[in-house]
């Protein structure tokens, strides 16, 4: 297979189309194998169940060759940034990558997504020449921050308070493990067994990727391989350019708000605008975040431009303009992002300065994705959903015989209605796509009781296509412990679209042993809990899409029977009259005419 087939010049490609397709398939297999092994080997549920990990191969410059389909977009997406950050840091230090290195990196001002997402990067050499990197990233349960867990660290005043920082740290050098680093890890991380096990799993998966990568390049030769890779990037780029070219040129802008910290009086801490302006010119698009709130130097909801903001933008554009349902699995690589320029003024929430803290950037980032979708809704109304319900992440923790237990759970949001489809109920939204943990698993391994896990009744946002429905989950402590939480969407309702109603905000209640409930904000720093106390999380419900009066009355009836909406709402919002579990068509027609 080494010899090239008929020249590909006639197609403007470097490699013939058959060899290109075969190499692309092989690359995809490698990334999947890495993900498969990492997910199955890892210890903490945040990786193995929530699938909050990424695997990818890059070229020597950090350009992404392929990513694992199972991994979560916000983990694979930043990998090129990790590699560039590592290369830059090493160069500044007068160091370089060498065979046998395993490099650990989590510097959010050096390409990493945020501190808990630690990358392990293995350089791949062929005949002593660097041909690329095999990289895995994963969210770790604890990185030695001020309170247990690695989410809800909403009190961190700078990046130092967020936990250990690794800036291109060689955890193995020339094939020899650097035991000192491992000792520091074990001494500074709560639940070290889990975290260190996960790190070992990450390294093992990256090693497999490196070996496969090397033999693939050997099989085809560097020239053919590189040609196929450049073709692959061109291919993804071409798809994105074609999709952008179909959009009318112009400027489209949208603003949404995040809660921030409503309990702090100072207005610069709460009700913060996120503004997105899209400028479409030909087959290129500029995403301008001017107008977004200023960075907050002492609260960790700033979003690293590289690793969070760029990924949020790329992933949202691709999900809308190159929706997998229509376009299939397009290779995710650096070509896809070439037609996209991002402009974020330095000093705004979306382009903060070191050492402003960033550890809780997840939910603002997802809100940025939602705002981008809102701007795009003016251009491609048939390819978007109405406003999404944002997420919240909670870390449960406690001490058991002097040893920490930590468990992270992502509390799902929901989608807004879509053209021809109701919103997805109780799912992760936009740039996140993790999994929950089974009730039977949690109760078997943690001192928690799950009292309920269900959808909210009678709250779906009205629309021709209704908004998705949020969940209710209640957790009761069976032993003393604590939790911390980071979230958004307790104040601002998901936006309705083209006459669809606004959605419903999320809520969080703390229920005491006496049964009294107290409302909590979307961000709660570490909070002690006694056995018997409960946390109740109500998920947000996405916005409605289109005029509710145009909704098929039979669908309205179905929603009433399924208790997604009340009979009163059927009448008030949809103008549908239901009698004896049937639609009263004459009364409905009349009612709708009067509106």
């Amino acid at each position, binding site marked *: 297979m080494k010899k090239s087939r008929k020249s590909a010049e006639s197609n403007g490609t470097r490699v013939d189309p058959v060899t290109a397709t075969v190499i692309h398939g092989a690359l995809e297999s490698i990334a999947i194998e890495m993900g498969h092994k990492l997910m199955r080997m890892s210890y903490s549920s945040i990786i193995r169940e929530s699938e909050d990990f990424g695997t990818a191969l890059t070229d020597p410059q950090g350009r992404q060759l392929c990513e694992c389909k199972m991994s979560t977009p916000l983990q694979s997406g930043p990998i090129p940034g990790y590699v560039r950050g590592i290369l830059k840091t090493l160069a500044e230090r007068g160091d370089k990558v060498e065979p046998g290195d395993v490099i650990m990196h989590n510097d959010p001002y050096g390409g990493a997504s945020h501190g808990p997402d630690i990358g392990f990067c293995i350089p791949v050499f062929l005949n002593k020449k660097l041909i690329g990197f095999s990289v895995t990233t994963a969210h770790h349960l604890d990185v030695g921050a001020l309170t247990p867990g690695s989410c809800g660290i909403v009190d961190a005043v700078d990046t130092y308070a967020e936990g250990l920082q690794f800036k291109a740290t060689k955890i193995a050098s020339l094939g020899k493990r650097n035991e000192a680093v491992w000792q520091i890890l074990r001494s500074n991380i709560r639940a070290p067994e889990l975290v260190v096990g996960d790190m070992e799993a990450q390294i093992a998966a990256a090693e497999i990727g490196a070996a496969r990568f090397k033999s693939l390049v050997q099989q085809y030769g560097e020239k053919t391989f590189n040609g196929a890779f450049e073709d692959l990037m061109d291919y993804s780029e071409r798809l994105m350019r074609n999709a952008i070219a179909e959009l009318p040129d112009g400027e489209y802008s949208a603003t949404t708000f995040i809660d921030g910290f409503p309990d702090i009086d100072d207005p610069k801490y709460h009700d913060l605008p996120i503004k997105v302006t899209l400028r479409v010119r030909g087959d290129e698009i500029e995403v301008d975040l001017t107008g977004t709130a200023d960075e907050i130097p002492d609260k960790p909801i700033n979003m690293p431009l590289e690793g969070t903001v760029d990924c949020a933008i790329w992933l949202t554009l691709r999900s809308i303009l190159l929706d997998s349902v229509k376009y299939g699995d397009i290779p995710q690589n650096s070509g896809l992002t070439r037609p996209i320029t991002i402009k974020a003024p330095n000093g705004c929430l979306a382009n903060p300065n070191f050492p402003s803290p960033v550890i809780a950037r997840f939910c603002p980032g997802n809100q940025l994705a939602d705002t981008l979708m809102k701007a795009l809704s003016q251009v491609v109304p048939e390819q978007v959903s109405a406003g999404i319900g944002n997420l919240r992440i909670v870390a449960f923790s406690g001490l058991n015989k002097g040893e920490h237990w930590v468990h992270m759970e992502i509390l799902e949001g929901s989608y807004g209605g879509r053209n021809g489809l109701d919103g997805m109920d109780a799912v992760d939204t936009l740039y996140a796509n993790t999994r*929950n943990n089974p009730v039977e698993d949690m109760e*078997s391994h943690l001192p928690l009781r799950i009292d309920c896990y269900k959808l909210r009744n009678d709250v779906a946002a009205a629309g021709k296509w209704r908004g998705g429905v949020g969940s209710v989950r209640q957790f009761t402590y069976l032993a003393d412990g604590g939790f911390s939480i980071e979230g958004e969407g307790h104040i601002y309702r998901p936006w309705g679209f083209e006459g669809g109603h606004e959605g419903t905000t999320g809520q969080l209640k703390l229920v005491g042993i006496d049964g009294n409930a107290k409302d909590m904000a979307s961000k709660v720093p570490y909070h002690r809990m006694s056995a018997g106390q409960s946390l109740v999380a109500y998920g947000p419900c996405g916005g409605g899409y289109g005029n509710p009066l145009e909704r098929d009355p039979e669908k309205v009836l179905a929603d009433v029977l399924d208790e997604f909406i009340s009979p009163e709402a059927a009448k008030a919002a949809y103008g549908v009259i239901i009698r004896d579990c049937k639609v009263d068509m004459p009364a409905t027609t009349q009612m709708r005419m009067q509106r």
Partner: protein
Amino acid sequence: MKIIGVDVGGTFTDLILCDTRKSRVFTYKIATTPNDPSDGVMTGVSDICRLNGVDPGDIDYVFHGTTTATNAVLENKGARTGMITNEGFRDIIHIGRHQRVHHYSIMQELPWQNRPLVARRYRKTVPGRLIPPSGEELVPLDEGAVQNAARELKAEGIDAVAICFLFSYLNSAHEDRAREIVQAEMPDAFVTTSSHVSPQFREFERFTTAALAAFIGPKVERYINHLNRAMRDAGVRADLRIMASNGGVATPEMVTSKPALTLMSGLAAGVLGGAMIGKLAGRKRLITFDIGGTSADIGIVIDGRLAETDARSTSIAGFPIILPMIDIHTIGAGGGSIAHIDPGGAFRVGPQSAGAVPGPAAYGNGGTESTVTDANIVLGRLDPDNFLGGAMKMDEERSKTVISRLAAQLGLPPSETAEGIITIINANMANAIHSQTVQKGIDPRGFALVALGGAGPLHGAEVARQLGIPEVIVPPFPGITSAMGLLTTDLKYDEVRTQFQNSRSVNISKVNADFCEMEEKLIGQYKLDKIAASKVSFRRFADLRYVGQGYELKVPMPADKLTVKSIQKVWDAFHKAHRREYGHSFMESPIEVVNIQISGTGKIPKLTRFEKPSGTSVDKAFLRSKPCIFRVDGKLREFATGFYRRDLLPVGKKIKGPAVLVQTDSTTLVPPDATAKADEFGSVVISLGKAK
């Protein structure tokens, strides 16, 4: 003993009849009757008996692979299903794992939300709650509430009910009691419980499996009863045995009680057929490779044992199933796969397929796109005049026209395009095999590939070569291997119990007690099935993981009572399995026993051999020589290629590639630098030369 295997496929119903005392087998093919597949089955059984002078009354067993359950799910045409579950947990099957199917899609649908197996209005909740670790009762079951729920469901016209309570895998008392109450209220309904269907942890997956069972239950029951009756009416007194997804067969009673067992009924038999062929040829490590018109199914067999999936990897129509199941990996690659240029300009083949209608352009049924079959025709590898033994005429010109059109778009010569289609589809298949082997720590170079299906023998050798697999075995009737596989099965039942025990504090007597109880349950079952105790054997397994992990590996357990000493060997075996599968082990970490499983096998009569081929010389088998195109040393070349009648090949005589072996149900390609010879069991073994 006379036995019949009947496999219902999408287009054809395949039959095979054999007398276990002789080695002669008879095969037969009839069009599938989609409205009621049992019509085709019955006609086929009558026909094959009549054509071969066998009295239907003399048939002892009819083994049957059915797609009734699978199709009910795929077409979303099951029973109107209700569910009774815990208060507070009405929407477990609707929320799922709160994960979307696609990362990058706004317009996607979620199967469990867009096509719920049980609509929310039919999901009733009742007070009652069990808790871990032992299934202790926290809140007693509210029997009045169960009764009310059953009455409501009855009034709503529900035909099937799944009763699903949390932690029922630890203690089925609440589910069992609720079932009694519901059955009393709804005597005509199909009622099942999640612990009956699959007593394993993970509520979304277990509840969904139970809901699937209820959804298909009434249909499967009707089908089996109807078929049983029709057999009696036709004078067939044989016992009916139904293929199950675990690689064994089950009695009609078992299948109507646990219909979810048949969800992968159709697929499982192919792997068994391949396993039998490999065994006859004396090969211990096999990859079965079954290619039809739209998909390729891949199975792994080691030492006669079929690889089983883990609890988290099986789904149907997007719904997860947790049941012991043989591991079959399916990809969208077959003879009908369409070659095209995608919107980004890349050359792709599949997963879209022209299917049976319109089928490849060569069929002349209106197909206008280039398919894999068309590419094979253009390259000369399929004989247009002798497809399906001449039963179907193919139009070579149509293939050339569509391939030339695609070639013009690609800027490649037509022959390069046709060969490119084959290279790409073969690479897709090789990647799929890679994911089932190399990715799981298995080196395919020590395996033989068993090529099955209408198109498997056409692609097997080139796919094998890509993976470094040294030989390909082509069974006597590759196109009806599923029907043949049915004749090689045993009565196989599994029991599973979730344990959640830690290696540092393991309660061995509990494990032993659970194994005993499970074994007794199965012994009772085999007694009911009239299988003598001497014919029954058991194998024990455990699903293990390091404490904290979320995926288990299946490890064999000692057949006798577990001791402190023997369990040490189990831990060692787990470390080893983990290292093999993932390339790493954590020797210091404690291990968790998640599930224990016992698999019972009740031996039944089966097909064990084939007649020795009667061909006398290669010359007699020779049909003609025709030019075929192959890539050698990176270049396309035309070779004069011998076409032979497969059934006339003499045993043990080498045929040098390139060669094409034709038979009514398949075509075998022997590429240049490979050789083929028929063995005494009727298989053809292709030995591959060095990779080029």
